[in-house]
């Protein structure tokens, strides 16, 4: 005998076959305010400091998180990890960047000497990625409960322009990008390559399998991002725009924790102006270089060359802040290529540099020429971690950076 309950049961059964909303969302035009994409193609002059050399090979720790889901993150969720990467031990996130609606991770297999896969992971939210750019008919691959699209690019179509200064830029002629939505509204793009010798050449070759393997490990669980500084007084109108983190790895002599916050008033017409691109022979520059329009950078560094200014000035400081020697100085410290012991200062006089106990805190202003007193107020109002080399004990960036 059929009853109304039979009807409800049949309807529920039908409802369970409803399609996933991904394809519909992909067909919709992105809406809402977008943060201007950071065009980060910054090429610097041939000044290569020893710190840059260190940064180019720095290899940090496995990402882990210790907090609950995203909804439980207090403060600014831009400065938290939107997913748990659950990286295998052989993979390291050597470069991590966080902005309001995008997070970037450069992932490298550090256990393979040659032909090591290296990958780029991007996370986008709030319409920062337009899923309608995924070509129709792209093949799919299951990623846990989700379905990822495999997008093949020919290099002329920059599906996922990376941040500047990546140590391992993707350059294969044909790239393969996994695109999926690990959390509703959060898009992940992941692409891997391997340098494969072919005769006398080394050819970057896209590899899908490492990307699929890594993607399957990513957990939709938000995590905490540590910050070694808690910001205090800031010049009026400035707010954090980007956090750049390169973790320490004990396998690399001289490496350290490098954490940079870039702040801006939101006006690209003021603040930092990237240097004009110069001819060949120059190398790409500092990983902590700001983007156009940034007005202030605050860098926390425990790498080997933390004590550059102490060495240059012979210990003669302009002030003492947080028990650290503070120097009002130029932006760049340049080592002679022929004689690394010869050091010169260059660039604008816009920096306050604090050094002590294996830590350098470098505060640079790119707006109008800042006075030492202005920069000292920024430095003095900050709170610094008591555990410089233990990111797990750092402040929660979601509240410390604001």
């Amino acid at each position, binding site marked *: *005998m*059929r*009853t*109304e309950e*039979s*009807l*409800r*049961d*049949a*309807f*529920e*059964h*039908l*409802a*369970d*076959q*409803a*399609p996933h*909303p991904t*394809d*519909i*969302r992909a*067909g*919709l*035009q992105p*809406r*809402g305010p977008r943060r201007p994409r950071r065009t980060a193609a910054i090429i610097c002059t041939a000044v290569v400091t020893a710190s840059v050399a260190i940064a180019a090979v720095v290899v940090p720790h496995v990402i882990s998180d210790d907090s609950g889901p995203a909804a439980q993150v207090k403060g600014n969720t831009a400065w938290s990890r939107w997913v748990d990467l659950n990286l295998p031990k052989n993979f390291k996130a050597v470069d991590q960047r966080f902005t309001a609606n995008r997070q970037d991770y450069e992932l490298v297999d550090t256990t393979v000497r040659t032909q090591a896969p290296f990958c780029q992971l991007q996370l986008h939210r*709030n*319409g920062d990625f337009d899923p309608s750019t995924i070509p129709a008919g792209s093949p799919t691959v299951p990623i846990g409960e989700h379905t990822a699209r495999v997008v093949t690019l020919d290099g002329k179509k920059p599906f996922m322009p990376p941040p500047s200064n990546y140590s391992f830029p993707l350059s294969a002629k044909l790239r393969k990008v996994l695109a999926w939505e690990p959390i*509703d*509204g959060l898009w992940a793009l992941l692409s891997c390559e391997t340098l494969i010798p072919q005769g006398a050449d080394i050819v970057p070759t896209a590899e899908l399998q490492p990307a699929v393997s890594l993607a399957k490990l990513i957990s939709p669980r938000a995590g905490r991002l540590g910050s070694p500084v808690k910001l205090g007084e800031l010049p009026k109108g400035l707010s954090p725009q980007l956090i750049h983190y390169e973790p320490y790895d004990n396998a690399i002599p001289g490496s350290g924790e490098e954490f940079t916050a870039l702040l801006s008033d939101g006006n690209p017409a003021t603040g930092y102006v990237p240097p004009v691109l110069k001819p060949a022979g120059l190398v790409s520059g500092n990983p902590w270089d700001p983007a156009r329009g940034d007005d202030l950078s605050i860098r926390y560094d425990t790498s080997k060359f933390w004590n550059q200014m102490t060495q240059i000035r012979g210990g003669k400081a302009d002030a003492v802040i947080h028990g650290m020697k503070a120097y009002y100085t130029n932006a760049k410290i340049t080592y002679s290529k022929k004689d690394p012991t010869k050091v010169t200062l260059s660039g604008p006089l816009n920096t306050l540099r604090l050094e002590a106990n294996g830590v350098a805190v470098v505060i640079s202003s790119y707006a109008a020429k800042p006075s030492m007193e202005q920069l000292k107020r920024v430095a003095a109002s900050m709170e610094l971690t008591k555990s410089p080399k233990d990111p797990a004990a750092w402040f929660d960036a979601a509240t410390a950076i604001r």
Partner: protein
Amino acid sequence: MTFDEWTRSGLPPLLRFATVLCGTPHLAEDVVQDVAIKAQRKWDRIGGLDNPEAYLRRMVVNEYLSWRRKWSRYVPSAEIEPASTPDHAERTADRDQLLGELAKLPRRQRAVLVLRYFGGLNDAEIAETLGCSPGTVRAHASRALATLRIEFTSNRVTEDVHHAY
């Protein structure tokens, strides 16, 4: 509620509703796709309504009825997974048969049943959704239930149904 927020929270249940209404996930996806595109353009108005879900559900019903007129080749048919165990075989066969008969109902009768037994709407709400009188709704329901040979167990069917939508 912004449109983006709605696509996260409101789109999945609307797809479930549309799948039941259309009888096939493929047609449901097409219908909801069209509705979502229209809704996005008019979200400034829809998002400010007291009950945007009801408005969107009405759009889906109208689109379904419209699609059924424009695309008569789409005949709602249940896409049923095979029974996993013999114990469920008989029940599954009954359900398959019921879904097959549902697919043959006139579209307005089917819409009334879906809105009432899946959507949890009362006759007045269904009438408003379909743009007809409550009496017409009751007539559609009565004929549909008779066609499907479903025993009518309650005179107040809409008060105890769960709101699956």
